[in-house]
């Protein structure tokens, strides 16, 4: 597999990204536990500190900027658990990343069936 090729709109989650994203993803992995979700909601900043996120990672989390989370090494599988805390589903997250409203994003999904 040629890892240097880029697919437009796709942020390949590979080894170096997993190294960069480790604290961020470890934090999101903890959200499998309800107590961890509650602890995060009670004090986000303390939770970033607990998992030793980089300053850039803290900022993209504060901004709820999903594309930037991916760029700082976030894996969508763990970020989805964070989205769950915020009450967002995968269509909401799709809209946030593509600049659509959730309804526009859903319509876009349906349209791809009309081939």
């Amino acid at each position: 597999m040629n890892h240097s090729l880029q697919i437009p709109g796709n942020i390949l989650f590979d080894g170096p990204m997993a190294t960069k994203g480790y604290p961020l993803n470890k934090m999101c992995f903890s959200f499998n536990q309800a107590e961890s979700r509650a602890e995060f909601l009670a004090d986000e900043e303390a939770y970033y500190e607990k998992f030793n996120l980089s300053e850039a990672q803290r900022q993209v989390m504060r901004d709820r900027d999903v594309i930037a989370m991916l760029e700082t090494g976030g894996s969508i599988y763990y970020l989805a658990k964070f989205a769950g805390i915020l009450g967002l589903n995968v269509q909401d997250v799709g809209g946030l990343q593509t600049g659509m409203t959730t309804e526009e994003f859903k319509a876009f999904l349906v349209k791809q069936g009309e081939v």
Partner: protein
Amino acid sequence: MAHILGGIATSHIPAIGVAMDKGLEQAPYWKGFFDAYPPVRQWLYAQQPDIAVIFYNDHGLEFFHDRKPTFAIGAADKYENADEGWGIAEIPPVTGETQLSWHIINELIDNDFDITVCQEMKVDHGLTVPLTLMWPGHQYGHIKVIPIAINCERHPMPKPSRCYDLGKAIGEAIRSFSGDQNVVVFGTGGLSHQLDGQRAGFINKPFDLYCMEKIVDEPEVLTKLSNYDLVEKGGSQGVELNMWLAMRGTLQGASQLTELHRSYHLPISNTGAGLQLLATEEAVTN
């Protein structure tokens, strides 16, 4: 020897489980999707398999990057489900099996597959949603499950050809087992979807239909694809096709295959959802 009755490929999207919990199968959004399942359920009911070998991918419940296996196989009496972080209702534990598991593990290591062996593991929606789809009302306790998790999350991932070869080796192991259990194999996940990036929402219906066509009689064509190809053509989560290929591999040494079902519906959540059933000559035909 144990018998492989056939292989079933199905989507495993978490939203499916939520819809079933809420009784939404006949709601407009869901009807087209759920209406495909009764024929496959009826086939399973007629076959009465003892064991289900299920290829799935963990989505960050059991495995984290601290220790991320390429291939993990279960060898436990029981597998617990758990909260995955977004409030899916927990469901009854999945029944395990250890004798055939250890036989498969011995054969895989002997054939140079470097599997991680799990005597305790939590299984996520990738495995439980297909079980719930096949046995509604969580009535899957009677079937013994051997879970096999394939890394579909972090690159590098096992190549499509390697996943297919894993399936082939598992098929041979099952057929060489001294018991006479009846086994059905599941490939779960897919088909095309992409959750992350500016390309989120990408679905490729022509490619999905092509995969469902080729997997019946020409699976080797699909094994020539790289994971990069799968991401490009099927989206970043399109690599879940690897579980379908592993399932298909188990049928390779079997007698002639009969395709008893093929359907495709989109979108379910962000995904092109496929359902396919390939029966071997070992299956009861009536």
